[in-house]
């Protein structure tokens, strides 16, 4: 049984905040270098909100706070994209004790909602690559009847592969897309933050597994 709480998302927020410079530097290589700044700003604001709540909010409530901060205050591309992801999670993950398959279903739903607002698809050198590979890897582990820890590990490992695959891709979306072939050799910043979010979430869930 997986136990979810606001702590998982506070750890995710901390990871994004401490990766501010790294994400902006990556983004600056092929786009405009603001990814880390905007992500760190959004997650700092959301974290403050979560911490200010008493009693501590649920995972779903915390996820919704992140979503509304991103929708209302951050903007850019990442506001609507991550806003949609976290809002989708908040809609589906309404219980704090779940099976790994419920986590899969929630991220699958988030991925579908994301495809509704963005035309980017797997292979376009965006965070979609991280998310899609993570879901594929997780779904294989579920089909193989693996244990919850193994399914979680597959989720994180798939995210890593998807993230790393963006390095050799040609950007098709966002500001990096105009570089064409010149975008090869650089990791996509959004794919990176998505990997950090998934891997940190998985690590924090695994740490709480009994």
């Amino acid at each position, binding site marked *: 049984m997986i136990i979810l709480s606001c702590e998982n998302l506070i750890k995710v927020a901390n990871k994004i905040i401490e990766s501010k410079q790294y994400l902006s530097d990556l983004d600056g290589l092929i786009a405009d*270098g603001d990814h880390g700044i*905007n992500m760190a700003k959004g997650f700092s604001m959301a974290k403050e909100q979560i911490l200010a709540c008493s009693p501590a909010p649920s995972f779903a409530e915390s996820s919704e706070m992140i979503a509304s901060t991103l929708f209302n*205050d951050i903007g850019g591309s990442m506001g*609507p994209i991550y806003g949609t992801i976290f809002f989708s999670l908040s809609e589906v993950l309404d219980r704090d004790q779940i099976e790994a398959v419920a986590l899969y279903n929630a991220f699958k739903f988030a991925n579908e909602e994301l495809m509704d607002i963005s035309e980017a698809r797997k292979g376009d050198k965006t965070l979609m690559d991280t998310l899609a590979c993570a879901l594929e890897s997780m779904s294989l582990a579920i089909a193989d009847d693996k244990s919850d820890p193994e399914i979680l590990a597959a989720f994180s490992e798939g995210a890593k592969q998807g993230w790393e695959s963006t390095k050799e891709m040609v950007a098709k979306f966002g500001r990096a897309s*105009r*570089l064409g072939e010149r975008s090869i050799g650089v990791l996509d910043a959004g794919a990176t933050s998505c990997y950090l979010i998934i891997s940190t979430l998985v690590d924090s869930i695994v740490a709480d597994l009994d």
Partner: protein
Amino acid sequence: MQRLINRPDEVVEDSVRGYVKANQHLLSSTDNPRVIKSNWSPTKGKVGIVTGGGSGHEPAFIGYVGKNLVDAVAIGEIFSSPSAKHFADAMRAANGGAGVACLYGNYAGDNMNVKMAVKMLKREGIEVKTVVANDDVASAPLDEKHKRRGVAGEILMWKVAGAAAAQGYDLDQVIAVAQKAIDNTLSVGIGLSSCTIPDVGHPNFNIDPGKMEIGIGHHGEPGVSVEDICSADVATRKMLDTILHDELFASGDEVVVLISGLGATPINELYIVYDSLCDMLDAHKITIEENFIGNLFTSLDMMGATLTMMKLDDELKQLVQAPCQSTGLSKF
């Protein structure tokens, strides 16, 4: 980085506050600190004109809020789209009951946030229609025009639509003429140096000394080619050729020319470009009816310039020449 700022992450807040204080005769702040509105907005029965975009392009976007121009603007972080909420609040501030035209540039973030804002407003019974500017000729080939970015040509789109709304055009008519304006407009930029987002602290990309990038984007999106730096005459020729390649402009046309510095280029160099351009357009038998020259749509401290040309017909000419007042653009 040598900048006159307080805190790097408060550049937008601090500068907008100062801008509002300095221009109370034209505009005011709203409940949302990321939205400012014209003193004439909302006007009952008039179509509201809204735009928005990332900061760092001043006077765009806030500088075009005024009389017979933009009614309300959504203000984003440096080089980052305003949020859906900011766009929605700008639309509310501009709504005089005749619908709202949201006229903005073609960027992934702006597209998503405007789309979400339009949905929010629909639920409130406010009709919003959009035109997406894609005048940057160097940002994608003609057969992929929908991928082109919006740049300084947006100013002419706002000018035309703002005048049309003031003259009583209804929402569909404003949208149609704004679309015509941008369809008749092409822009191209050249970059001679990079730019630095204050909160990042180092240049966004690199242009080697002695080089320039043709087709550079407004956020430092690298250009389509890197070349040795050349004279203003040759650079102007390269920009004009890039625009003429689309075959929108022909001998006998009347045009508006807009030349904007990107932030760090001295204004006098823009007139050197204009001087060259006049001779070249003369040779093409293209007549300049109106010109707008200055730092009109910048990219922080980037060195370089953009050239924008709009082909006129009688309607566009009348609307471009109609009076308006804002800090970025005025006609009397």
